[in-house]
């Protein structure tokens, strides 16, 4: 007997634009800056469900800070924020080039996403703990972690704090509230919830922050984190950096039919907000709101940062194979550095001259530090971590079988 139904077909989402196409973001809805209201930090998540479908924005097209979310930072703080973002961008460019020169095996840039981690860092207090992915080095830059130490890690040289055991950029700094980065995606999202639960169990006042990319929200640990954060009302800020791309895969593959990534929080009863990830002021204001909410015991917040991964996924990636080369330029939320710079100029707190001077200073600083790091060594050249060291730290005390293997290896 033949079926009376039409044959079924599989839905495979496709991005709007592939190599050779002209980018078109015309159907990308962007609310006006200042349009989204700022609720009280103890708000019932159910009453702000619309915030997961809008975008909190502070800077308007004229570079003015407008609306409820404006005014949290002084001009001095904003200049410092600009400097952090410029430093991260310069650092990225130097390390990207260093990889191309064979000084290290690997690097991942933050190009276009600098505001997210740099502004977020400013909302935290000493003792709080970030559980970052590999694309939040701004958390380190903005908390004055030494760039020299970062470069030593990237070069896996004798001064690498991780003794050459980790792939470049997988930093770790407990003292700077930066949890050890893992290559396994999504794992740290649920760990951040556990850290926050531990703070609550201990009657502490510290909070945790989890980080995940748009693509990795598809990992099961994203769901685990949301369940546990919701059940135990953990003092955690859960951050989704939606940069539109997971290597070559556009965000629609991870997002499926849901309107936004932030909307995923609704099913868990978690306060969920979407924010302009290229607006330093908006990122900071929302991060501060969520951190305060967590610190006051009102529970977790899910934040989706809408941004664009302007660079390749990594030094091993060529984005021209899967997306239009002009897509970054067409991205409607612009460049976070340019937008903050324009704002500071608009309010009379910055000039083109000062900007050029700052660029030169930062380049000089980063270059000087790079020379210091390279004087110690680069991958395979100069002072290297001892091979003996790879047997250390597997356990606190080296068990007999590892001692035998270390001796067998000749150390």
């Amino acid at each position, binding site marked *: 007997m033949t079926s009376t139904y039409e044959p079924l077909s599989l839905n495979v989402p496709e991005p709007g634009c592939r190599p050779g196409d002209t980018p078109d973001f015309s159907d990308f809805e962007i609310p006006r800056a200042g349009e989204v209201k700022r609720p009280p930090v103890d708000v019932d998540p159910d009453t702000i469900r619309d915030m997961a479908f809008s975008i909190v924005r502070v800077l308007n097209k004229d570079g003015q800070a407008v609306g409820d979310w404006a005014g949290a930072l002084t001009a001095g703080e904003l200049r410092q924020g600009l400097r952090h973002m410029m430093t991260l961008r310069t650092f990225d460019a130097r390390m990207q080039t260093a990889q191309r020169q064979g000084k290290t095996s690997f690097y991942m840039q933050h190009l276009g996403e600098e505001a997210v981690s740099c502004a977020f860092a400013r909302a935290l207090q000493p003792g709080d703990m970030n559980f970052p992915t590999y694309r939040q080095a701004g958390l380190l830059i903005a908390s004055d972690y030494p760039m020299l130490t970062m470069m030593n890690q990237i070069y896996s040289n004798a001064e690498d704090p991780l003794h050459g055991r980790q792939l470049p950029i997988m930093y*770790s700094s407990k003292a700077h509230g930066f949890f050890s980065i893992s290559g396994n995606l999504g*794992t740290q999202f649920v760990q951040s919830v556990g*850290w926050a639960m531990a703070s609550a169990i201990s009657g502490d006042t510290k909070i945790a922050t989890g980080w995940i990319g748009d693509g990795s929200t598809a990992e099961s640990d994203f769901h*685990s984190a949301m369940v*546990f954060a919701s059940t135990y009302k953990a003092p955690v800020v859960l951050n989704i950096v939606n940069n539109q791309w997971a290597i070559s895969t556009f965000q629609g593959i991870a997002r499926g039919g849901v309107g936004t990534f932030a909307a995923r929080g609704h099913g868990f009863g978690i306060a969920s907000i979407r924010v302009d990830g290229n607006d330093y002021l908006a990122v900071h204001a929302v991060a501060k709101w969520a951190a305060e909410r967590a610190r006051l015991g009102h529970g977790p917040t899910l934040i989706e940062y809408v941004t664009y991964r302007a660079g390749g996924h990594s030094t091993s990636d060529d984005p021209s194979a899967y997306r239009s080369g002009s897509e970054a330029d067409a991205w409607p939320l612009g460049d976070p550095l340019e937008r903050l710079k324009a704002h500071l100029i608009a309010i009379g707190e910055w000039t083109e001259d000062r900007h050029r001077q700052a660029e030169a200073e930062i380049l000089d600083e980063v270059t000087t530090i790079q020379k210091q790091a390279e004087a110690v060594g680069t991958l395979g050249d100069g002072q290297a971590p001892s091979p003996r060291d790879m047997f250390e730290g597997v356990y606190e005390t080296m068990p007999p079988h590892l001692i035998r293997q270390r001796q067998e290896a000749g150390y």
Partner: protein
Amino acid sequence: MAQMTMIEAIRDAHDVAMAADDKVVVFGEDVGFFGGVFRCTAGLQEKYGSARCFDAPINESGIVGTAIGMAAYGLKPVIEIQFADYVYPAYDQIVSEAARLRHRSNGDFTCPLVIRMPTGGGIFGGQTHSQSPEAIFTHVSGLKVVIPSNPADAKGLFLSAVADPDPVIFLEPKRLYNGPFDGHHDRPLTSWKKHPLGDVPDGDVSIPLGKAKITREGADVTVLAYGTMVYVAEAAAEEAGVDAEVIDLRTLMPLDLDTIVASVQKTGRCVIVHEATRTSGFGAELMSLVQESCFYHLEAPMIRVTGWDTPYPHAQEWEYFPGPARVGEALKKVMEG
């Protein structure tokens, strides 16, 4: 000293650890109010409060993942996976995170964590209530793997696991929860309450990890066993009339190779027994180590008696479970070799 079942000894060990250190927190599916499906955490929530002992959502990766975060904060989580058969959703967190954290961060972050899970068969548990997954943990650098065979060891090893600064996989043979089991399923169970090994010392008594115990001295053949197989091996030695030396490994990682080597060099023969499937099982590692360390002392090829390379069946329980008859045959065969 009190007579306890293994369940009571594990519960007592939790009590001792939680009383001694308020950083010890206990959670898992059904472990809070209800006290665990095997009663191993009974009464702890009432005594220590729901912030120290609580129920978790049914999400193994979430249980282990949050525990890793707690350990990184500075707590000592002791978590339960209801059956070892259900640990697989947490495997990424255990292998990629818990096991590697100290090494990858150069000690900046550590993961003092105990993951308890009932293991093993012999209870008509079928495919997903009988597995012995120890080999998937012993293969992972950075983990310790412990499996006790009696109430006193369970308490002592548990307390050492809690005190250990690294993640410990703590496998509890559920067939041994209420009494020893030698594979003679047609005979009545003896409770630990009427068994000399049911004597459990009071208070904080720890047994060091990485130390095996000779449970039966013998001259002819060394039997390497752990968990339920310790009793099967002892029974098989008596019934086969072979003067076997039975070693209860107790900790699989780190392994007490010295005790193993001394015994095999004395007996010249070795039989390895485990419930887990054979291929790439922990027995293969034991066999390799004995071969490397005792080659010139061996008088016969070593023999492994293990579960078959099949999923654990239901109706065919006793054809699958390596009982005293199969172990006895191996003991006789190795003596002929």
